[in-house]
């Protein structure tokens, strides 16, 4: 099997088979990652560039280490201190990177659709590492990988996603991915932070955290951006935490063996109490490891497109 597209722009346009294939490949990669000698030749002779127009610690580091563990040449560009700061257009920057022999461009950008624009104008594969409010597909893939690892399957699971759905690319990618893989997705968050007509994507939207959490197998809490308060989207952190924060009490509504996840970084005491964040059933730290595995899998699958296909 090969991936249909040269790029990974989002899970919206990806098939369940492709997602399954990426997750299976990530399993092998995790094996490499957790072994004693973290070095494979999979990306030998390949060049990976991360182009980040927004700050990021874990996603960027995760991609960088994934490339290094597989022997790729990798380089980073920050939007500040590059020609981007001088007003160069995304397409021009992309073409410049392309012409230096780059195989994969990993982009994070504050505007939804920026990776799609880039992908149309470069020969390199483009991986979306988060675009505006649209998608963060590698995060959703690592979330699904984590769930599958812990629960054995995604099919038929009840997954609750709690928080600022409106601004969350993590939520959108998870919605597309999880529903394709047969999970039941329930969402809850302040009414001002629920995007319109969300039900049409096949999820259930609740106005209380209780309804969304009921009998959940998995709960994903989203990071609350504190600056949303200034735009009058919610009155205060205190009130948000009172109605949507997850503590041990609320967690009892979910299944006993509920898996607790968060894309990080966690605002302790806001979306998760410390007790929940550090709970035995919290997979927050493992998500980080799985993130590297999933990104290794993607870099591998995208760079071998068009080379060894026949062998499959």
């Amino acid at each position, binding site marked *: 099997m090969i991936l249909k597209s040269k790029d990974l722009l989002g899970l919206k346009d990806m098939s369940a088979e492709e997602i399954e294939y990426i997750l299976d490949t990530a399993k092998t990669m995790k094996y490499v990652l957790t072994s004693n000698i973290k070095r494979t030749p999979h990306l030998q002779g390949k060049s990976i560039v991360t182009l980040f127009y927004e700050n990021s610690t874990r996603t960027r580091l995760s991609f960088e280490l994934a490339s290094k563990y597989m022997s790729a040449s990798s380089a980073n560009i920050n939007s500040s201190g590059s020609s981007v700061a001088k007003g160069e257009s995304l397409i021009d920057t992309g073409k410049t990177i392309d012409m230096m022999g780059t195989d994969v461009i990993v982009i994070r950008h504050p505007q*939804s*659709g920026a990776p799609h*624009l880039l992908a149309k104008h470069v020969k390199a594969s483009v991986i979306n590492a988060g675009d505006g*409010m649209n998608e963060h597909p590698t995060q959703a893939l690592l979330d699904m990988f984590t769930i599958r690892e812990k629960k054995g399957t995604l099919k038929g699971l009840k997954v609750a996603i709690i928080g600022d759905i409106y601004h969350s*690319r993590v939520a959108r990618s998870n919605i597309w991915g999880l529903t394709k893989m047969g999970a039941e997705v329930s969402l809850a968050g302040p009414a001002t932070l629920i*995007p319109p007509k969300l039900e049409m*994507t096949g999820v259930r939207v609740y106005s209380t955290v209780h309804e969304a959490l009921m009998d959940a197998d998995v709960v994903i809490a989203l990071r609350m951006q504190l600056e949303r308060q200034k735009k009058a989207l919610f009155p205060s952190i205190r009130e948000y935490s009172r109605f949507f924060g997850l503590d041990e009490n609320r967690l009892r509504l979910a299944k006993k063996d509920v898996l607790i996840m968060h894309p990080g970084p966690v605002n302790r005491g806001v979306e998760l109490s410390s007790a929940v964040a550090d709970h035995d059933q919290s997979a927050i730290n493992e998500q980080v490891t799985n993130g590297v595995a999933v990104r290794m899998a993607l870099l591998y699958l995208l760079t071998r497109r068009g080379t060894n296909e026949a062998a499959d």
Partner: protein
Amino acid sequence: MKLLIRNGHVIDVKTGIDGIYDLLVENGRIAGISTGIDPEGCEVIDATGKYVLPGLVDAHCHLRDPGYEYKEDIESGTRSAAKGGFTSVACMPNTDPVTDNESVVKYILNKAKNEGYVNVYPIGAITKGLKGEELAEIGELKFAGAVAVSDDGRPVKSSSLMKKAMQYASMFDIAIISHCEDTDLAEDGVMNEGYTSTVLGLKGIPAAAEETMVARELILSEYLDIPIHIAHVSTALSVELIRNAKKRGVRVTCETCPHYFSLTEEACMGYDTNAKVNPPLRTARDVQAVIEGIADGTIDIIATDHAPHHIDEKRVEFSLAANGMVGFETALPLAVTKLVKPGIITMKKLVEKMSFNPARLLGISKGTLEPGSTADITIVDIDAKFTVDPVRFESRSKNSPFGGMELYGLVWCTIVNGRPVVSEGVLL
């Protein structure tokens, strides 16, 4: 010089003519409409199987001149208008400098006289610099040649200022064209708020941002008993509010644009910046309501809102892309294809909405083939089909979401002041 247009289906709203006639043009004026006019000594255009209409009048376009000539200028813009069958166009004041004083109006009129392919009528600003703070010198604008005032592209945010603008402009009997948008509600939205914005992860502009402002203008107009013209109506509730106000006798007129009866928000899928426009493309329900508004007369005018932008302003991230699309060269074909062919309106209604009514709104003596009037004529073959190719547009800009679409309605001839500028579909 005599020009005879033979055997075409002539339509004129003012005189009520609607049938196969010969039309004679003499010395730049309509000399007569009847059957069997002697072709002796005439240059003859055979219009058999085609419609002969009063030249189309666009009440809302952007020629970008002065200030943004890299997008369009008066020469390229009027070439595009002529190609699309328009013989008169009214251009919005969001130029640089803003058309808020006599000298810019004069500049536009002079340039149009020297370089224009069609008649150009400047629209002046309501407020100085389009800033929404102080009234522009509306009297001076009117006497310099402005045919309406508008802060198009921006709303007049202050209700008090809008009230004063309406009162002041009414003194000079000049139309006010309102761009209805509550910018607080629109926030930093970039497309219609709805399912598609959710799917694309783009910030939405709620329909309510337009509708609340439409309601305000209707209330002010009713309160003052002063006419108001609502620009580019795009939502179902806007149509309903205006329909309702008209029933009450409010002196409101309004326009929509071809994209609001031809496209839905789904045109933005794939982050197609050519579909980014303000007001944004709405839902199928809104499109249906706009079509019904056109059919029942709630919507008086079809205007282009021709808004040229350079490719570099469109080939960027969706949120950063400029709003607007070029429209001169697709407006008539879209109206023919989406409204006339399916039987929603007749050709006569089309003439009313694309020529007669806009001329009346602007107070210009156009939009008719009545003998004695200036010979501005559009001849169109509504059965000829073609594929839209923006690269071939006469406009300097190619930002159209209609590329590749198959449409009916080929502009065969555009005659301005008795002189053909488009002949057999070719710009002269």
